[in-house]
């Protein structure tokens, strides 16, 4: 067994954040992170541990994509519960929740690889690590991120303009 303790301490938080942003489900993200660390246990050597962890996590997400519809229903259910509870919540909380929903919808508009590159970058992975994780050339990471950022911002702003029906939900 290698240094999983240290790996866990060092990378659990960014990995879970990455996965949560990617999946929109903290529980699911935790599961995938757990599975990732389990696999790390069985791995004898890693040249770049952070890239390795993010790669495995990303692949696990892709493998599990077919479960997504079921998950989504689950999430919708929870969200509905939450919205029911949020009736009396402060307007600010509503606004934040709306922002989150809008951000998620915008993120979903990105191509998968663009989305993953962007989320990895947000967790501090450098271009080499992102390239390794997503099987890109290092030279194309900048282009990928530029496209991802632009589209994300555009989609988010577009949501802001067009998502009025959701924004007024009470």
């Amino acid at each position: 067994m290698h240094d999983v303790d240290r790996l866990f301490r060092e990378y659990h938080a960014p990995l879970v954040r990455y996965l949560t942003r990617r999946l929109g489900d903290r529980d699911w993200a935790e599961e995938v992170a757990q599975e990732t660390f389990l696999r790390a246990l069985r791995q004898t050597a890693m040249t770049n541990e952070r890239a390795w962890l993010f790669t495995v996590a990303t692949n696990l997400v892709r493998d599990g994509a077919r479960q997504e519809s079921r998950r989504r229903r689950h999430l919708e259910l929870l969200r509905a519960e939450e919205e029911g509870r949020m009736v009396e919540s402060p307007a600010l909380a509503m606004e934040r929740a709306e922002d989150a929903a809008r951000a998620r919808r915008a993120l979903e508009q990105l191509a998968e690889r663009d989305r993953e590159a962007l989320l990895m970058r947000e967790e501090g992975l450098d271009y080499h690590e992102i390239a390794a994780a997503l099987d890109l050339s290092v030279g194309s990471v900048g282009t990928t991120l530029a496209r991802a950022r632009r589209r994300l911002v555009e989609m988010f702003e577009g949501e802001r303009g067009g998502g009025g029906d959701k924004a007024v939900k009470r």
Partner: protein
Amino acid sequence: MTHIDEGTIHAWLDGALTPSEGAAVEAHTASCAQCAAQVAEARGLLAGASRILSALDEVPAGVVPVRAPDITWAKPRRRWLRPTGWAVAAGVMLAVGVMTARRQPAVPPAPTAKATPQPNAAPASSSPHTGTLNKSVKTQAVPTAVGAAVPTFGMQTAAKSASAPAVRDSVAAPRAMAAGAEEPRRAVGLERSTMRLDAVVTGGAGAIRLAKDPAQLGVQPVCFTDGVRVLILDTASVAGDDRARLAVRDTSGVVGEWQRVGADSVALRIARPVARTVWGMMREGAVDFSGAGMVTASCEAVKR
């Protein structure tokens, strides 16, 4: 003069260019209004994208409900989001017995009629190497007949849920339990509580699959207790090795280990300073069994 492409600008802003490349970009933008505007825009996109993504971090709080008031199997895993009370009380000894299969004619592993067995569970009753099924469970650490008199936490049971409290729907369960519909043993201040887990060992290095409900197979996380998750850190073959053990350690460094118990079972023992104890299991634990067949795990929390 060639303008700088957007990807290079982003790479520059991300600090991904070599010093000489960076200097070239800088020099160019100093004398090219168009590229300077591009850089300004790219800065805006960087900041904007970060801000938008950070809004996603609101999602767990907004989407994932707070923990159900009762300790149930159905929703406790959200608890770790608010790991406040795990250190509340005195030591709790947790024992989990994992019993390996006893050979007997195949019986479908899924306990409920409505339940569609998880893909990996299905072969357990049909494939040649999984024609075994656990039939009785005894946990060395605990005298109670597991799954008979003691309420389960809605876990799938190999011994058929007909003889055990019903497997509940994951969403409905908290309410049902809160209403005392089935008089579940509460984990708060519990003397003893048991739940059963089923697992399918799919081969020599079989994955242990555990879930509360066949329909939920594959979605349950690792063992955890009140806000502190347990990460399985080490594995060893169980069969045929008396010293075999599976060490577990949670994120706060509490260590437990699987110990071989008797001829065909292992127990997980963890000393934990918690009053509230909730068990979950990995959907794919790293338990290494030789031989195939059903495995049933019994978790029991016993207050010291």
